[in-house]
């Protein structure tokens, strides 16, 4: 008899989603989909607000990556008002964003994802979580909690607020960095780099090896990828040109001001989240798993697939090892976790580079600015993907129109494909249990939605 299995809510992710799996008469999977349950309407309700206030409103889109929205928004408002922030302000913004990346990846790996590997995908739900990890490995837990907290408190101590930041301002940054701040944060970031290297080594030797077969099979799909690179083709989280790669590895690049020529957004009645797709490929949109059309992915694996290289030495060495093992572009969904830890190393190394530049302490951190009518697109690489804020303003500098493409949404269509693939490969003859359903969720968790 056909039936519907409803996993509600998807847990250990940020946000509100559920999975529906439709079984046919034989108990095999006919279809599966991811429902995104929430809509708040930022694109509408920032209309009429003074543009310079918007970076401290839209950060509430996400409490895990508020710096990303804050800074993409600041870039968009700068462009609306036609102002270029002074060099020290750009460096401070980039430093805050880079440290936020470093903190975010530790949070996702240890607090949300690791339990599936460290405790095991089939373990009872009461222990398959970070609290279970803390009880089973108290020393590791203490170290993780301390290091993640330290990264977060750098942001809080220097920039006032770490969650829902306010220090990015139109035209620059709200305060300069003192030499003593620079030295203290530099020392802390060096320690965090050591921890990033420890984490990657720990994952490569202890966490991933028992699951290599699962990693190469669960939720695997074939798609394109999107991410930002600098003028040399190296990974860049803060600024650059956006590269869109096809499943065969060929790619195009575009200026994010032209994003609307490249990206379309598809709507399905089972998801409030829109599904961005590659309009520029002229093949339309399809979630047919045998022949998906227009589908590309964002976030860690996508970024290290589209980048030719990483500009910092430790992360570059890791990228080379990764490519040796898994090729380019690597398609296996659970490799997002591995790619995330390579980016963690890069984020720490790059923060150190930024802090070794004495120019970051230049006291001139804000350019003069007047409200005016204009249009501006701002983007950064959020942990969850290429984040685009696009605003128009009137003569008084109030927002008249906004369009947002949020990092996570690039992966909504791919998540649907991965869930379908995972469900079809592990559910047969109507047999389901908690472990099998958790494996289906693992195909979502890899995307860190």
């Amino acid at each position, binding site marked *: 008899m056909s039936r519907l299995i*409803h*996993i*509600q*809510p998807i*847990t250990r992710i940020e946000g*509100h989603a559920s999975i*529906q799996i439709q079984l046919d008469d034989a108990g095999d999977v006919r279809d599966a989909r991811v*429902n*995104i*349950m929430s*809509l*708040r*309407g930022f*694109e*509408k*309700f920032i*209309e*009429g607000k003074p543009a310079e*206030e918007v970076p401290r*409103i839209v950060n*509430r*889109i*996400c*409490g895990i990556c*508020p710096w990303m929205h804050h800074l993409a928004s600041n870039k968009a408002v700068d462009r609306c008002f036609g102002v270029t922030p002074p060099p020290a302000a750009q460096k401070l913004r980039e430093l805050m964003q880079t440290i936020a990346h470093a903190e975010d990846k530790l949070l996702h790996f240890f607090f949300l994802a690791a339990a599936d590997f460290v405790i095991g995908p089939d373990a009872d*739900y*009461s222990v*398959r*979580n970070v*609290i279970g990890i803390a009880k089973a490995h108290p020393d590791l837990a*203490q170290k993780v*909690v301390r290091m*993640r*907290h330290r990264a977060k*408190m750098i942001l809080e101590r220097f*920039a*006032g*607020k770490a*969650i*829902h930041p*306010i*220090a990015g*301002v139109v035209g620059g940054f709200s*305060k300069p960095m*003192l030499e003593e701040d620079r030295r203290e944060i530099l020392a802390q970031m060096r320690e965090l780099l050591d921890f990033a290297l420890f984490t990657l080594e720990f994952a490569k030797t202890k966490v991933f090896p028992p699951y290599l077969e699962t990693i190469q099979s669960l939720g695997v799909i074939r798609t394109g990828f999107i991410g930002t690179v600098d003028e040399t083709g190296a990974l860049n989280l803060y600024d650059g040109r956006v590269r869109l790669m096809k499943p065969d590895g060929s790619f195009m690049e575009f200026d994010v001001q032209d*994003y*609307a020529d490249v990206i379309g957004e598809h*709507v*399905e009645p*089972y998801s409030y989240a*829109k599904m961005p797709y590659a309009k520029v490929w002229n093949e339309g949109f399809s979630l047919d798993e045998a022949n998906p059309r227009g589908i590309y992915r964002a976030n860690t694996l996508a970024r290290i697939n589209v980048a030719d290289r990483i500009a910092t030495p430790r992360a570059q060495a890791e990228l080379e090892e990764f490519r040796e093992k898994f090729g380019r572009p690597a398609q296996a969904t659970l490799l997002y976790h591995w790619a995330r830890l390579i980016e963690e190393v890069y984020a720490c190394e790059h923060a150190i580079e930024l802090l070794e530049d004495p120019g970051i302490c230049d*006291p001139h951190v804000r350019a*003069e*600015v*007047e409200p005016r009518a204009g249009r501006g697109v701002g983007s950064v690489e959020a942990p969850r993907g290429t984040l685009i804020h696009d605003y128009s303003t009137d003569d008084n*500098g109030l927002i008249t129109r906004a*369009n947002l493409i949020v990092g996570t949404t690039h992966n909504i269509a791919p998540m649907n494909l991965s869930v379908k693939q995972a469900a079809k490969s592990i559910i047969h003859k109507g047999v*389901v*249990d908690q472990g099998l*359903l958790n494996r289906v969720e693992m195909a979502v968790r890899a995307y860190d939605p």
Partner: protein
Amino acid sequence: MPVTVASEWLNSCSGCEISLVDLGERLLDVLNLVEFVHIPVLLDHKYFGQTGEKDHLDIPEADVGIISGGIRNEEHAEIAAHMRSRCKVIIALGTCATHGGIPALANGFPVSELLERCFSTETTDDNPRTFDPPVPRLLEVCSALDEHIAVDVSLPGCPPHPDQLFTALSALLQGKAPDLPTKSVCDTCPTVREGKGKLTKLRRFLQNPHYHSPDEPLDKMRCLLEQGFLCMGPVTRAGCGGDAKTPRCIAARVPCRGCYGPVRHDGNPMLDMLNALASNGIDVKSLPEFPSLLRFAGGHRLLRPIRPRKES
């Protein structure tokens, strides 16, 4: 016996939950004293049984229920009511839960306009804009929690400071009511007040405030409102600075926008601020618009759509 805790997030961003994680090593102490029976961000407990086998929502009973986020859709309302029936004490965590928070800015528009705009942006395909279950229907307004269920403890903040969360949770775990600040942000602000002088207009925050050198301490910098910037400190509940007291935005030399909600739970920050400015001889028309003054407290029907003026 550990205290059992059920936790839910409704119309929220997860910032409140991350602020809990920002307890740092104190988090490990808290985890030793409580047993989470339901918390979707950390624990794989499901609403309808672990394999979706039940036909009704089933969150376990708990001593304490923590809810972040306000109520925007039918699912939020259902979960809030169920949490109330299962938990002895309900804590509204964060300003979205206590006053609607930033998402309640949506109350400045009819919900039909919200949906219309979100699904007709320049990059959105011309698809049908209707949604089927299980995607929940949006309610007409975005509400604070206490508009739907009885709330025992309100912990505002966007997000609440980890120090405050630790103090409040520690008290609750001992069965005591938490001792929360009742003053305004100004009462905890170290900047220097000299009187407003000849100020008659406010400036937008398009330049950084004046102070003498990059390392000048905050207690030598003049009050940002007296410098002519809109600062919501006078009408905003204190507490954002945690144990250090100094308001967090002021620490970055940026004016307050009211993220802890009104000083009195049922206050109206927009009216209170406009009254305070007007009674000090400041022309409120120098502000570019007013609805932003309610950006954290648009629940409780305080923020409503502006009706187009009728032609006469």
